[in-house]
């Protein structure tokens, strides 16, 4: 079985063991706990039990985690160590982890310090901004020689301000003169947009001056909190800015120093994350005064281990099989060769609980098709090497791990087809032979045949592979029908079509390609299958549905187009090989001088990297498509929910499991 069988369990235990049991379950990581909301709506239950745990615990831990996440974000910006290509969790054994996080008081202090530092950094940056804008505002007034706080003398008032430089200074002066003769306007400076003015006028002339202001569109400017002439102010502010800068620098240094504590801060995050998950699990229990109740799923493989655990805590428990129509959580259990390909199924949709896991059935087709479309010895080896190195170097997990590992396998398939079709960087060996050794016989010989000189043969085989692939998909459907006892449907939907397709092929191609006389056989098989497709619905459907066979017959077009769809195996396979050949040919045009050889290598590297990337992508996408559309389309429904074990969902460390 490729989908793990699941049992349900419920357990009743004494309250005093609850927390340690929950922690142990998290350690095990093999159970999925179910929410008990439906029971809490049931009066029979609510009369006896309450919801366990409380939201406060959860939210308290959540807020702690939020704080740490912000701190980590702050420190990450100052972390100058090289960032790995993939974010991976660090493997840590439990003792080392406990030792570090048990020190949480001092880590807390560090967290507080980082928060303090970053908040004062924020303040200082705000201050610096303010100073900078003030300086910018003051710069045009540098020539003005009166202290800016001085806005009046005994008999006069002083206003500073700007007017748009649509007017020139003479016009401004004239307009003010018109308003009152008791004022003196002088220009301090001017720039692209504005003229900067100082206006002196005798006290008591305010109203007339204001009239004048209106005329020229005067914007009064008041400098608050500043003393001295503008140039003095600028000097002072510049000095202040420098001080702020050095303070900022100091704090940034301090923050950079705190980066060395980043690791333990991250670990503390994970400790809280685990505590939060335990608190959340607690919310899934039901409790009476002295006992608790917990329900969930467990793979049958873990039955024994889990029973032992429950016995240890003197719990009353039961493990039982779920009812047939109940939706079960899906957990795959495949051998290591098939396991990476699970990711392709996961990307589409998990099987629902009535279906089987299709991964083991199609995994060879997936890898084979990928290899056929990418088919090249060198590309295959490179792909496998790169992926294997990545697996070695990084502690990859989950989807990424599976994806990378499936590419490592696909590389092997690619190299295999490369050998079959005699392609290693296209025809590079041949080109090098002709170019440098004057030896035209260095071209790699294909083990099977060369698809470039004989594309029709590969087209034929592509369609044959495709037909087998589709037939297997249909077979899975037939199996499901037969399991439900629907034999007629199995014949109508699957077996008749087997005959139909085989018959058509023999009829059309049997005489000329296989053996004289097969054409007639094919003709009769086709007629028989057609009759079956027309007649069977009379026994299956009722009423108007009896005539549905006529419509079903139209399905022959969809089967033909499905099979033709596999011609992409040829087309993409050719694309990879031909583009490599073009690259080699372009490189081959270079002369045999040193510069020529360097250019030859440069063209080869760029060309092959490009070809590798674009056709690798194509092979992956189209190999997936053949599974999703042509294969899954025949039988697969999907829609299953994944098994989400209650385990340590840590972000930064991966705790090494002790052997149970």
């Amino acid at each position: 079985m490729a989908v793990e069988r699941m049992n349900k369990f419920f357990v009743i235990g004494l309250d005093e063991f609850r927390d340690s049991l929950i922690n142990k379950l998290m350690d095990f990581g093999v159970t999925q706990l179910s929410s008990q909301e439906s029971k809490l709506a049931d009066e029979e239950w609510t009369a006896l039990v309450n919801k366990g745990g409380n939201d406060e615990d959860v939210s308290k831990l959540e807020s702690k985690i939020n704080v740490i996440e912000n701190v980590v974000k702050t420190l990450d910006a100052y972390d100058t160590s090289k960032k790995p290509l993939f974010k991976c969790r660090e493997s840590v054994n439990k003792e080392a982890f406990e030792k570090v996080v048990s020190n949480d008081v001092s880590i807390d202090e560090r967290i507080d310090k980082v928060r303090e530092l970053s908040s004062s950094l924020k303040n200082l940056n705000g201050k610096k901004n303010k100073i900078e804008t003030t300086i910018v505002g003051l710069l045009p007034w540098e020539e003005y020689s009166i202290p800016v706080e001085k806005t009046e003398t005994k008999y006069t008032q002083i206003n500073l301000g700007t007017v748009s430089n649509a007017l020139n200074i003479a016009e401004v002066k004239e307009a003010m003169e018109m308003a009152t003769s008791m004022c003196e306007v002088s220009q301090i400076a001017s720039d692209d947009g504005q003229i900067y003015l100082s206006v002196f006028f005798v006290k008591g002339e305010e109203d007339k001056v204001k009239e004048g202001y209106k005329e020229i569109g005067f914007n009064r400017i008041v400098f608050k909190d500043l003393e001295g002439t503008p140039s003095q102010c600028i000097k002072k502010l510049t000095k202040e800015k420098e001080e702020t800068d050095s303070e900022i620098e100091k704090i940034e240094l301090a923050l950079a120093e705190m980066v060395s504590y980043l690791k333990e801060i991250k670990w503390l995050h994970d400790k809280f994350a685990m505590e939060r998950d335990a608190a959340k699990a607690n919310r899934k229990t039901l409790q009476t005064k002295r006992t608790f109740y917990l329900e969930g799923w467990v793979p049958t493989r873990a039955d024994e281990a889990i029973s032992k655990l429950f016995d240890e805590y003197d719990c009353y428990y039961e493990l039982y099989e779920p009812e047939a129509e109940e939706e079960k959580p899906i957990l795959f259990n495949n051998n290591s060769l098939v396991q990476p390909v699970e990711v392709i199924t996961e990307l589409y949709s998990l099987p629902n609980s009535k279906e089987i896991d299709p991964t083991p059935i199609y995994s060879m087709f997936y890898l084979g098709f990928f290899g056929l479309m990418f088919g090249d010895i060198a590309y295959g080896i490179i792909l496998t090497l790169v992926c294997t190195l990545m697996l070695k170097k990084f502690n990859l997990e989950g989807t990424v791990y599976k994806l990378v590992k499936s590419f490592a396998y696909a590389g092997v398939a690619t190299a295999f087809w490369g050998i079959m079709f005699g392609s290693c960087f296209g025809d590079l060996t041949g080109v090098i032979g002709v170019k440098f050794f004057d030896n035209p016989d260095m071209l790699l010989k294909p083990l099977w045949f060369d698809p470039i000189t004989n594309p029709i043969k590969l087209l034929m085989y592509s369609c044959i592979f495709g037909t087998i692939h589709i037939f297997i998909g249909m077979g899975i459907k037939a199996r499901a029908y037969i399991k439900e006892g629907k034999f007629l449907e199995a014949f109508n939907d699957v077996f008749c079509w087997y005959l139909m397709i085989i018959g058509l092929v023999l009829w059309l191609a049997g005489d000329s390609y296989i053996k004289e006389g097969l054409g007639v056989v094919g003709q009769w098989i086709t007629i028989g299958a057609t009759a079956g497709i027309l007649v069977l619905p009379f026994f299956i459907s009722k009423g108007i549905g009896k005539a549905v066979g006529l419509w079903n017959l139209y399905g022959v077009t969809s089967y033909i187009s499905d099979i033709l769809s596999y011609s992409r195996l040829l087309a993409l396979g050719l694309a990879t090989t031909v583009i490599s050949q073009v690259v080699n040919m372009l490189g081959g045009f270079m002369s045999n001088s040193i510069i020529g050889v360097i250019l030859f290598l440069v063209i080869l590297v760029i060309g092959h990297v490009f070809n590798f990337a674009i056709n690798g992508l194509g092979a992956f996408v189209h190999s997936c498509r053949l599974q999703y559309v042509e294969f899954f389309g025949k039988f697969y429904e999907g829609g299953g929910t994944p098994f989400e074990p209650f385990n340590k969902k840590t972000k930064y460390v991966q705790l090494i499991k002790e052997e149970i």
Partner: protein
Amino acid sequence: MSLGIALAIGGAAIAACACGGSGLGVGAAGEAASGVIAEDPNKFGQTLLLQALPGTQGIYGLLMAFLILAKVGMLGGDPAAVTTEQGLYLMFSGIPIGIVGILSGYAQGKCVASGLTLIAKRPGEIAKAIIYGAMVETFAILALLVSFLMYNSVALG
């Protein structure tokens, strides 16, 4: 140089026009990708993957163009003897991928662009977005196949 070779080069030119479809398609996808990145820069890898999808039509066109040019010896500097009929034949062999490449490249670009808005909201569904794009590409592949089979059946002597 014979009329046959000129016609064959015309075929290569038509095939290479498929690059135009890819240009339009990759462009449309790139516009949508920038929109997604504006929200979440971490999705760069995913969006790049999707943006590259409509690029294949151009590759197919390039492939046919090179094949035709190589057959008539235009790449080796040693033109082959091509009759007018053979030249016409080679020209026709460039048409399927040339025309279908333009149309399907553009259509795939639009399809991928909406796929990008899909992953902006649901990053887990990238496989579906890719498959929708691959559905469009099927027809470019069929056109390439027809082009190649036509090309392959001409033997220059």
